[in-house]
Structure formats: C-alpha cells, structure tokens
C-alpha cells in the first residue's frame, strides 16, 4: 500500500433548501483516503451517504437551492474550486462512481458498447476501433461472457448482475485513482450481490484504487474494507479499522445497528435488539447529540451539547467516535467482550 493520499475531505457540509426548511444532508464530514485503501460508509437510509459520495465527486455543486461548504481534494485538485471543464477531466480520469441501481444508471436507449466507448474516446482520444477493442477488454475484465456480442446489446437485454458489471467497466475505463461505489449491490438479486462485491474488491486491489464502498448492509462492508465510517443524520458517529468497529463498537448507534441485524447463527424467534424510534427529520434535527432521542445511554448533557468526533482509540489504529459517553473498549470491558466477539465473527 502506498502512502500517497488520493482523497482529502475537510469539513464538508451540503445543504439543500427545501419546502420544509434547510436540510443539512451532510454536516461537517472530514476524511482522507490513500491509494489502495478501502473505506466503507454505512448508515441507515437518509443518513447522508449518497449525498456525501456525490459531494466528493463534485456532482453536487453550489446552486440556488444547494450549498456546499468545505473542501474536497482529489489527487491534490480541489473539486469544488475547479472550473466545470477541469472537473470533467477529473471525472474522466481521477474519480469514478458506481451507482445503486444498474437498471437506471444505464441509458435504456444506448447500446452497452457506446456507454463505455464514448468516455474512452472523449478522455483518451481513442478512435472508434481502438475504443471498441479497449471496451471489449474491459467487459472481459469485469467478467462478462461473450463481451464482443454484448457491445451491441441494449441494457435491458442483460440481467441485473451483468448490467452492474457494465457500470463497473464504465467506471474503470479511464483508470480512476478513486472509485466511489454507492450501494452497488442493493438493487441486485441475493445470489449476485456477493459476486459483484468480490469483483469490486479484487479490481480495487489489483489496480491500487482508493475505494469508497457505501452500503446500508453491514455484512457487505465487513471483511471487504480497511476502515469503516458509520454515519447518522448527516454526521460521522464512528470511524475505525473495520474489524475494530464490528468487534467493539464504541458508539451506541453502531452497537444498536449491529444488534438489530438478525444473525444466521441465532436460533429462530430470537428477539432482536431493535433501536427504538426512527431517524430524525433532517430539516429539524434534535439539538445536542442527534442520536439522543433513540439512545439507550442518553444523559442530560447529550440533549444540549453536540458531541465532537474525538480520538478514543486505545490501540495503534485510530478510532474516532462522536459520543459523550462512548462504550468501553472490548479489551478493557471484561465481561462485555464475549457476546460482541461472537457477533463480530458472525458479521465479518
């Protein structure tokens, strides 16, 4: 793994003006990513994962109903300070995105081949023939059988898994340094999800791409990422090495999230430890800690004072959490350890 920093995000805030008020979809997120490193972002729907991904891409730009604050630098270039033209060059070559639903992220009236060749021709200046050859090669790399024949097919003629492979090929065509995959398997059939995740992981590894894997499925992220970032209501609540987060979550929300997943090893009819309530209205989030209304450990202080994202790690790796009363570390907690360890084994 090289030390080269590919992505630097500093205090990014993305706000939308809506009829119900200002929605801070992303509220003060900072992170950095090195080449070859994989970051998982998890959280419930509406927690700001997609908006963060799109803000990093620069697909969300300041406009009359949208405000983006803070800075995003990809390979040293500030995305939001760039001109539209520079940004397009960035999109072609430095950063690419895989979207959730391959049904809707391919143009239904365009042939599979065109989706890939047009970017190759625009960014690499290849001629028609060279672009087609390269596209076929890419399709083969993402595991599409009979790539030459697929080139002239329309997206609807392919199955969901094959379509997502095309989307991945499209994203890889100009060798990006950073890949953002926004719920790449959520819309797919259970039997193909794992294959697509495995494909992404192996491509990221062989190409030394920095990768952000966004998902609401903790199982998809566990074991595939170096670090995990848990988001709640637009903010990062916890971030650390993947194993550490799953084995010993320090933030009450992460703990609740892990506990609410039914586990295959549990006997039937095990009562799940659900988190009570539902995520806050983003146009009017609670004061203090945003998780306070649902937190089993809530104290008075939590309702008034917003917790900072602070280093609470006890090992070499960084472990940050935004909680006034973080849960004890597994190793120092004594009795609390065994059930968590069992849980982590199951998840990862």
């Amino acid at each position: 793994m090289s030390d080269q920093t590919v992505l630097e995000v500093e205090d990014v805030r993305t706000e939308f003006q809506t009829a119900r008020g200002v929605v801070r979809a992303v509220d003060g997120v900072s992170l950095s990513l090195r080449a070859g490193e994989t970051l998982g972002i998890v959280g419930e729907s509406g927690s700001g994962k997609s908006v963060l991904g799109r803000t990093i891409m620069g697909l969300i730009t300041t406009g009359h109903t949208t405000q983006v604050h803070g800075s995003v630098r990809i390979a040293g270039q500030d995305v939001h300070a760039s001109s539209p033209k520079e940004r397009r060059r960035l999109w072609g070559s430095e950063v690419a995105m895989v979207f959730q639903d391959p049904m809707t992220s391919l143009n239904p009236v365009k042939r599979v081949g065109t989706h890939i060749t047009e970017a190759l021709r625009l960014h690499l200046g290849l001629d028609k023939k060279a672009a087609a050859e390269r596209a076929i090669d890419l399709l083969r790399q993402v595991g599409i059988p009979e790539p030459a024949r697929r080139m002239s097919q329309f997206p609807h003629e392919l199955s969901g898994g094959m379509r997502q492979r095309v989307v991945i090929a499209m994203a890889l065509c100009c060798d990006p340094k950073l890949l953002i995959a926004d719920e790449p398997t959520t819309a797919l059939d259970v039997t193909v999800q794992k294959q697509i995740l495995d494909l992404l992981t192996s491509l990221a590894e062989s190409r030394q791409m920095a990768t952000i894997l966004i998902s609401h499925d903790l199982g998809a992220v566990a074991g595939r990422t170096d670090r995990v970032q848990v988001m709640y209501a637009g903010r990062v609540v916890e971030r650390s090495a993947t194993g550490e987060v799953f084995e010993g979550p320090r933030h009450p929300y992460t703990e609740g999230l892990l506990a609410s997943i039914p586990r295959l090893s549990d006997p039937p009819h095990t009562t799940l430890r659900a988190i009570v309530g539902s995520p806050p209205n983003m146009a009017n989030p609670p004061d203090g800690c945003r998780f306070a209304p649902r937190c089993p450990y809530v104290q008075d202080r939590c309702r008034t004072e917003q917790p900072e994202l602070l280093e609470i790690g006890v090992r070499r790796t960084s472990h940050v959490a935004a909680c006034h009363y973080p849960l004890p570390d597994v190793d120092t907690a004594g009795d609390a350890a065994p059930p968590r360890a069992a849980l982590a084994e199951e998840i990862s």
Partner: protein
Amino acid sequence: MAGSGTAHLRPEQAPVLTVDDMVVEFPVGRGQKVHAVSGLSLDLLAGETLGILGESGCGKSTAGRAVMQLPSPTSGRVRLGERELTGLTSRPLRKARSRMQMIMQDPTSSLNPRRKVKDLVTEGLAIWGFEGTKQEKEELVRETLSAVGLDPDVVWDRRPHELSGGQCQRVCIARALMMNPEVLICDEPVSALDVSVQAQILNLLERTKERYDLSMVFIAHDVSVVKNISDRVMVLYLGKTCEVIPSGRIDSDAAHPYTQMLLASIPGAGDRELSDSAAAVELPSPLDPPSGCRFRTRCPLATERCAAEEPELREVRPGQYVACHHPIIEE
C-alpha cells in the same frame, strides 16, 4: 406426476391452510406462458410461521397472491381450514379471503395516499361487517394501532406521506389485523426497510402473531431474516419446491444445492464456498424452464439423471424434505 411431491404435508395435524399442487401460469401471447408456480404444495399449522425463500423471480409473490386467490391459481386447490377456496364465487370468496390478509413489500405504495390513517385502518371493518357503535369502532382502531406500536393520537389524522416507511408498514399490519384474520401472508414486509426498523417490524410481527393467534406465511429473500421469524422454511426455485426444512437447521443442515447457494451468497458469509460458475449463470427463462430438475443449469452437482428425471420431495432427515437426486448429506 410432474409435481414436486407432497411428502412434506401434514394432513393429520389439521392445518389451517393447505395448498395442493398449485399451478400459476401467465399466458404471454403466441401460445407461450410464464410458468411462475408449478405444482406447489404446502400446509400451515395453527400458530406456525412458514418462511418462503428464493431469489427474485422464482415465484414467491405469485404463490402468495394465488393463495389469496388474487388471481386464482391456474389449477390446484387451496383450503382454508375445511373450506375450499378454489372455485368459490366472488361473494363467499371475499368473505373467506378476509380470513387471510396480505402485507406487501412497499408499505408506502400499498396505502392510499389521500386517506388518513384512521380511515385506512377502519375501512376494513365495514367490509368484514363489523357491528358496533361508532365509539366501539374507534376504540378497536385505537387499540389495534397501539398494538402495532403507533400512538393513535399522533397518527390518527396523518396521511401516508407524513409517515416513515416503518410507520407505514405498521399501519398496513394494523389494517390487516382489523379484519381479524387467521392467516397473515407477508410478502417481503421488511425488504424496503432499514435494518433498525426491520428489527422493530420483525419483533412486532412475532408479538402480533402471539397476541392475535395468527399463522403466518413469511416471504423473503434474506436467509437470516427468514430463519429468525419462521418455524419452517420452504425454498423455492423457478416455481418449484427445492427443500422444506425446520428453520433452526437451515444454516447447518441444508441439503439442497440451491439452498447451499443461497447460504453461500450472503455477503458476510465468510468462507462458505460459492461456486462462481453456478451463481454466474442466469436464472433460466420461466417461459421455458429446464427439463428434469429446474436447477440443473446452475447446479454444481448436476448429472444426466437430473436432466431426464424430475426429483420428488422426500424426507432426508426427520422433518426435512429435499427434492434433489444428489442431496448434500454428510453422514
């Protein structure tokens, strides 16, 4: 003889719901038809939850709807207790159907957006022929709303778009409960929900089942979810039954290669081996399903026999039935 067998049925235990050799086909023109469900048999004992598992397009929803007679199956019999549903005329059918209620995957779109929660939940009473004063009616609605974990005073006058997905699903459950059903058919009721809300709804369904003496058919594609809520799991593939297994043993004892594939596909399933080639092959067209065993085009264990001869469900261990010529059973 083309059926998947009936070895797993338990007529002697007086099931509340029995489905016998049910076939659902959709003509799609030019003499072709989609074989959505082919010879499905199942039964449901009082208080039991039957999980139905399978990937997209394998006929889970179609089977659930055909049990409700929405629409009636192409052939086969559906019995609710002693009552034969197939062949009933529309009025008695409506009455019988109200003893079964269905919960759908997308909670928001299965509620009329223009109606308030109180009306959505009350309307069933009229259909069912509830006789009581207006006050009794309201009391019953409030009680049911509380039972599904909604504060009646808060949601009473709200419309679906003012509720979250989880709350909408609770309204759907309350609405179903108002009909006083015996059987609840849940078609992927938690697939559209977040994990934290999914856990709430799963717990709620479990509690509701106890409190209202329900039997449940629970359709889903997530093995862990199905295992959590069911007593017995039935695995479907292309409209046919692969395996029926007590849910507590699904992860350890599954003997059908397709069940194994589903288990291996769980993203966090660790080292469970997934034959890449098997999963990569696409679901064959339901217009022209493979001969013999329908799973053979993707099955790593397929032999010539599998193409020639359709496997029948047979008991491989007590309570576990498998339709496969070469079940995976370690002695």
